[in-house]
């Protein structure tokens, strides 16, 4: 899961030719172009997030953007036929951030997108609480939708988070689903 990229021959050619230049194709300076290096586009936090504010910040002043796709995962009150009172999300500090950054990097390689943001909460959550936000900006909807879905599908099988549910019968660790592996394998 190195962010350095994949071996040659395996990678999909990146189609964003303007990336890396300081002036957009239309000649305007790109005010919010990413700095060289590794921008912070992933956050792991206990606090809730404001998706509207995050998306506004993500696309602020960036007139290249014609499409924003976002996904929000929330806590259901029923899972596998049991009612869920609370949910505890555990993660592996250090690896979590690295794996999310690698997934974001992979999305930027594969799709014609400008910015990708991932916020994932950890700790104690209850039904209706927000768990995860993925937001993508692009020139067009196709790449925005695809990149958003790709990031979620990869996150579900590669990022080290674990859910523990509190149900009337007691606590239980959520089991991984084969359908999640299938979803990730499509890409």
């Amino acid at each position, binding site marked *: 899961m190195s962010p350095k990229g994949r071996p040659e021959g395996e990678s999909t050619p990146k189609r964003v030719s303007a990336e890396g230049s300081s002036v957009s194709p239309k000649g305007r300076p790109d005010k919010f172009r990413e700095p060289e290096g590794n921008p912070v586009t992933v956050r792991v936090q206990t606090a809730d997030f404001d998706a509207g504010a995050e998306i506004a910040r993500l696309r602020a002043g960036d007139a290249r953007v014609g499409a924003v796709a976002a996904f929000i*995962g929330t806590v259901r009150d029923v899972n596998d036929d049991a009612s869920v009172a609370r949910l505890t999300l555990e993660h592996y500090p*250090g690896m979590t951030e690295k794996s999310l950054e690698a997934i974001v990097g992979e999305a930027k390689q594969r799709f014609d997108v400008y910015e990708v943001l991932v916020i994932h909460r950890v700790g104690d959550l209850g039904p209706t609480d927000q768990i995860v936000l993925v937001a993508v900006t692009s020139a067009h909807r196709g790449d925005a939708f695809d990149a958003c879905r790709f990031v979620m599908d990869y996150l579900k099988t590669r990022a080290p988070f674990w859910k523990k549910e509190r149900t009337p019968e007691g606590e239980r660790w959520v089991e991984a689903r084969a359908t999640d592996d299938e979803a990730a394998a499509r890409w």
Partner: protein
Amino acid sequence: MRDQTPVTVRIVYLARLREAFATAGESLALPAGSEATVAAVLDALRRRGGPFAVELAPGRAVRVAINHAMASAADAIRDGDEVALFPPVTGG
């Protein structure tokens, strides 16, 4: 090409495995003469029996990361590595 230098790694247990083993981690010295691989670590832990034999039994879905990168059974480990064992992930 077998290296006789002792290999000691930091093991980290997460989620269900941390609870089953009642510890978040430990230092593990691989037995002399064994190959320094993920498989050797799992074998050494299984031989303890009890919850280790149950949770790490062949066929149980256990994921391994070396120094925060996903690894597989044949991957080599080096002295001082952090080797994390955990169940398949369930975030998102």
